[in-house]
C-alpha cells in the first residue's frame, strides 16, 4: 500500500535527487551526497541527517535497496554499504520526470518563462 502511494505522490526534492544520483550507478551515502551536489551545481547540499532519513524512507517504500558492502578505492579501505535504484524507483523517477515535462510544456504553452530557450525546453 505504502509503495503505491509513494509512486503516485510528487517526490520531495531530496528523494528526487537521490533517485537521479542512483539512476546511473549504485553509490554509497557520501557518493550520493557528492553526486546530488554536482547534479544541482551546488544548489542542493544534503547533510547526513537529511540523506539517511530519506534513504531510510526510500528503502521502506521500495524505491531503492542496499547493494553490496564494498571498499571505495577513491576514499579509504573501509567497507561501505552501496545503494541501488529498484524497478519501482525507476518507474517512480520516470513518472516524476513526466510530471515535470507536463508542467514545463504547460509553462511553455502559456509563455510563462521568458528564458525557456536558455534551458533548451
Amino acid at each position, binding site marked *: 500500500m505504502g509503495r503505491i502511494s509513494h509512486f503516485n505522490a510528487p517526490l520531495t526534492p531530496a528523494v528526487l535527487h537521490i533517485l537521479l544520483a542512483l539512476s546511473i550507478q549504485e553509490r*554509497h*551515502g*557520501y557518493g550520493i*551526497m557528492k553526486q546530488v551536489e554536482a547534479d544541482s551545481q551546488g544548489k542542493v547540499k544534503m*547533510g*547526513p*541527517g*537529511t*540523506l*539517511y*532519513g530519506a*534513504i*531510510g524512507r526510500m528503502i521502506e517504500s521500495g524505491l531503492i535497496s542496499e547493494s553490496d558492502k564494498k571498499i571505495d578505492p577513491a*576514499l579509504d579501505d*573501509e567497507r*561501505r*554499504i552501496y545503494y541501488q535504484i529498484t524497478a519501482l524507483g525507476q518507474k517512480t523517477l520516470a513518472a516524476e520526470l513526466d510530471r515535470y515535462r507536463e508542467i514545463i510544456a504547460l509553462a511553455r504553452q502559456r509563455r510563462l518563462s521568458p528564458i525557456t530557450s536558455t534551458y533548451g525546453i
Partner: protein
Amino acid sequence: MASEHSINRYRHWYVKLLRLYPEAYHHRFAREMEQTFNDLLRERVGKEDSLLRFVIRIFCETLLAIIQQNLSVMFRQNQRLIRILLAVASILIVPLIAMQFSNEVVWTLTDFIIAGALLLGIGLTYELAARKGGNLKYRAAVLLALAATLLMVWLNLAVGIIGTESNPANLMYIGVLAVGIVGAILARHQPTKLARALFATALSQTIVTIIALVANLGSPENGPLKIVILNALFITMWIASALLFLYSHTPTLKSHPPSPEH
C-alpha cells in the same frame, strides 16, 4: 587549519550525537553516518572557511533529523500513548463525577494536575519498561513497583503515612523512593539488579518504620499499629516486586536438559 585533535573531538561528539536516534535507526544507519561525517570532515580540512562553522551546521542538521525520527517513532506508537491517556482520563473522571454528588470529595485543580501527572508518569514508565521487552512476570514486577510508588506518593500527599500529611517525618519517604529510582536507573532493565534495587527500597522503608516507631513520630494522630500496617503493606509490595523480577529471570535455568533419571 584544524588540528588532528579537534577533528577527532568533532568525530567523538558526532558519534555521541548519533546515539540520540531511535535504537533501530541508530543500529541501521549510525555507522554509515559516522563514515559520511568523516568523509565530509576530510573534504573540509585544508579549506579556508571555518571547520567549526561547518561542524555546527552539520550538527544542527543532524539534530533536526534526530528530532524528526524520534517524533515519527512516537507517532507510530501513539496508539499505546492514546490508551494510556484514556486510562488516566477515566481514572480522573471518577473524583470529578463524585464531586458533583458528594461534599465528601473535594478536589482542587492542583489535585487533578498532580494526580494526572503522577498517573501519566507511571503509565509512561510502564510503557517504556514494557517496550524494553521482558516476560509477563517482568511486566507484573514493573507494574507492582510503580503501583507502590504511586500509592506512596498519593498517601503522603493526601493523609500522610506517619501522622498527618503535614508531618515532616513523611519526608523520609522521599529517601525511600530515591533508593528505588536511583537503583532502577543503575539496573538498566536487568531483572537481578532491579530486584536488588527493590530489596534495598524495602530495607530503607523498614529503617524508616523503625525510626518512626522508636522516635514516636506518628503521635498523636497515628498509633504504632497504623504505622506498622501501612509500612508493612509497602514493604510487602517492594519485596513481591523484587521476587517477581528474580523469578522473571529464572526461565533460562529451566531450559536445562532433564536429568537422566527422569
